[in-house]
């Protein structure tokens, strides 16, 4: 087993090399060896996916061997494609090796178990399908591309949750046994033990956040926001809607698995939200970039988000002042005020149309602010009062969702 673990450690290195200029020295034999390794890793994946403890051991070893633990156990399963496509894109690969690569990618010698002979042609076909079906959408919601990226992000995060859950579970189990064995131990040691667990969990959470940040930074910021928004929306559309094709989620068919995955979803959402809300500038840019209706949807489902969003909106609202000559609200300091009156109003209306709870929350907040401003119900004196009037008018027939 130790030998296998040692081999698995090589996976990140293999993939890294395949993307680097080091391949310029490869010949066909080297390439064959690399592909053999890839198939071997896939074989390991098939053997161990149904055996949680061994799988966990492999995952841990994999993560240890990477500075930033991006690859998990499922990466073993798709190693041939990862390697193949990485090499295909790597221009440093010399012609002889490349030819060998092309032959084996597109004409697999004799489809062994676990290899999918239809793999690459199917990919090309789907890619063409994506171009054909890219008619302009009329259904509201995030674009399919964002949704696809969001699904992949979610399933990756879920793997992390699953592994952490299992790791934490094992840790708890082990510490529980130890406690039983030392039945007469002082309470202090117990507290220390649980304290260690807490630290461990906090440490893991911080690590995950770093990882998530790193991954999202690979996308241009507007797109990253779109992906996160789509992911948060998907989480609320119910479980079972997103399954990665090759069934990475083992054990999720049992009722306990279902509950665990629901709890896991909560953790995933929490992680995404802490990324969003952790940085004020980022959150502000996020809210500016997304349309009001979409934000309202998310605010309706995530209380932390609705609170922060409201705070943000009220912050922006403070930068408006009333111009009696023009008879309307205008931005006072142009570099700090992000939204115009109309945009602000539209966003508040979206919030109120979303759900009864959200409407009450919003109105309560606005009323409080109006009270602070003197509680005048006359136009032009308090931006909050005016907003309340507009919102109240527009949302008379709100449909509670």
């Amino acid at each position: 087993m130790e030998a296998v673990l040692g081999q698995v450690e090589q996976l990140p290195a293999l993939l890294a090399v395949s993307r680097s200029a080091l391949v310029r020295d490869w010949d066909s034999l080297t390439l064959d060896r690399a592909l053999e390794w890839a198939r071997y890793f896939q074989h390991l994946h098939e053997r161990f996916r149904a055996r949680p403890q061994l799988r966990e051991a492999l995952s841990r070893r994999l993560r240890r061997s990477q500075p930033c633990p991006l690859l998990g156990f499922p990466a073993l399963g798709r190693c041939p494609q990862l390697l193949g496509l990485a090499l295909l894109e790597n221009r440093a690969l010399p012609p002889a090796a490349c030819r060998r690569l092309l032959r084996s990618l597109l004409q697999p010698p004799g489809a062994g178990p676990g290899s999918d002979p239809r793999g690459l042609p199917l990919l090309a076909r789907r890619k063409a399908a994506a171009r054909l079906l890219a008619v302009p959408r009329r259904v509201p919601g995030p674009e399919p591309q964002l949704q696809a990226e969001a699904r992949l992000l979610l399933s990756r995060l879920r793997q992390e949750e699953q592994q952490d859950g299992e790791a934490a579970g094992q840790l708890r189990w082990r510490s529980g046994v130890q406690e039983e064995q030392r039945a007469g131990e002082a309470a202090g040691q117990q507290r220390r033990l649980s304290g260690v667990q807490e630290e461990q969990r906090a440490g893991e959470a911080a690590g995950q956040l770093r990882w998530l940040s790193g991954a999202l930074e690979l996308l241009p910021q507007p797109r990253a926001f779109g992906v996160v928004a789509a992911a948060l929306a998907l989480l609320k559309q119910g479980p079972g809607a997103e399954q990665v094709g090759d069934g990475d989620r083992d054990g999720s068919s049992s009722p306990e698995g279902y509950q665990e995955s629901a709890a896991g979803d909560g953790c995933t959402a929490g992680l995404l939200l802490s990324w969003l809300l952790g940085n004020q500038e980022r959150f502000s840019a996020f809210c500016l970039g997304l349309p009001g209706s979409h934000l309202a949807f998310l605010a309706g489902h995530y209380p932390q988000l609705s609170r922060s969003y409201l705070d943000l909106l009220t912050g922006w609202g403070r930068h408006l002042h009333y111009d009696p000559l023009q008879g309307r609200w205008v931005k006072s300091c142009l570099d700090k005020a992000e939204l115009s009156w109309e945009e602000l109003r539209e966003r508040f209306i979206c919030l109120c149309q979303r759900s009864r709870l959200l409407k009450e929350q919003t109105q309560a907040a606005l009323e409080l602010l109006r009270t602070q401003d003197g509680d005048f119900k006359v136009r032009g004196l308090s931006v909050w009062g005016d907003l309340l009037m507009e919102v109240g008018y527009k949302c008379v027939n709100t449909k509670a969702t």
Partner: protein
Amino acid sequence: MDCGMAQDTTVPKLNFEYWLDKAVEWGQATTLESQKDVCLHLPQLQEFLHQLYETIKHLVLLDQRGKLEKQSQQGPTAAIQQFPLIGQLLGRLCWNPFVIGYDESQKTLMWCLCCLYSSEPQNAVELKANSWIRSLLCHLLSSSKWESNEAETSTFISALGYTSADYYCHLVKNMVVSLVTELRENQFNGLSIQENISASRVNAISIFCVPLITLPDLTPLLETLLLYHGGSSKEVLSSEFLEAVNEAFLKKKISLPESAVFSLWLRHLPSLEKATLHLLDQVFSIQLNSLEEVACVIKDSLLPQAASHPAIFRIVNEIFKNALMETDGTSEVMTIIKVFTQLFLLAYQNENKQPKFPLKAYFPYHHQPLVRSLVRRPFELSTAYWSQHVKHISDMLKALVEDTNVSSLTDLFEIWFLVACFGEWLDIAAEQLLKAAVEPDPVLWLLAFYYCPKNENQQRTQTMVEAQAVYNHLMMLFSCADLSLKDLEAAVRRVTGIEQCCNQRLTMHLLTNFLLFSSGGHKIAQECIYHITEITDTSKEVYNLLIHTAYRLNHSGEENQRTVKLMNELLQKLKLKV
């Protein structure tokens, strides 16, 4: 090794220029006309690409053997010499998503590209070619340098540990779900339509789906399109789409829910016609061992179930009628029609979902009481009542036919066809003659009508007379335990003699039943049938007759084991002759 000899192989004449012109004309298939044109040519193009690949592969292999020569040229060079513009062709086709999305074309294209890649580029041109091939493959499989937004996505996804395979799997599924939702929300619900989708949009979507029909991800969209009804009365789906779906369904490359298939046939007549003709071909090609097999094939085709829609039933019936006339009433077609009608009745009577159409919708021009009698399944009545029912049918039929209004041959044919479809009652009639105590004349008349409907020169009357003679002859011998072939000579001679065809077949029918159901007949059955089929060319007819009887016996739970055993023996022997 003399490589000169190997050069002798003739390169098959490929219509290269034609396809290159087409590829140039299509461009990236952005206009409606080019899209429709591509769709029409996809199967032939795939065939051409396959042949092209075989040719280049052959050339490349030849060349590699030729490495011994001083001026050893790389494999790909030979291919390029043969087809100088091959780069243009492949390049253009790779940018046509209709071509890439179709069936196996993308696989063959990529193989061709592989072939042209040289492992030892000798000069700058070959290096450039290599680079171009790699770019094309990247364009097809991962992120392309020509599409800027793909690069960002690709980096992100590989950071997560996934490949473009995962990404596009999800992406296509999402797009399908999105389109399905949009279409379903726009169904005409009888009140008002919001006109969110225009007919041209649905038409465009249906065209985009044509190459993707056999891609499993698309099945929900195919189903939704087939069931889609906008507000307009004109067909909104493109005919290329409907034809292509039908083809794929008939070749069993896709599976669709029944409702979608029925909808397809209801809205596109050529598809229904093709499906019916395909069924006829299928049944003709199988070795007729038992009617159960035929029934299985017909049921799988979904046509009997679809025929619950009267429009479909009538069209299928017409096609069968034509087939019957074109083949001069050959027994195989008649078999198909009979089994089809039985299965149709089964589906019709079991249908309890929607309100059923009245029988008149399926048989609008016929005498309804006759239709109702024929539609009754034998198992619905007790066996004691069967002969009465047969008499009832016969009487009605006689009244209809001998009425002076039925003068034209067409009308006569229509009535005859109606009766022939419900062949069960005819078989029962023949059996009842021998097994039960019946008044023979009406039954004989029914059989005479079936085998000889026309009566301009009194053929039917004559047949009737002779049938009576045969019947009397056979009834006399029915209780005899010991029979010899000589006793049946009179009847046998009618069959083997060069007489009217109608008499021959009717007599054969009566004779066969006699052999199967009388105690004396069992002993000489084999001998008699052998004798007859030796002399005349009727093996197929007899075989057919026996198959039908076997089917009925199996389904009616015939208790007489000897009969069943004899039946099987006869069938075995005859099968070798047919």
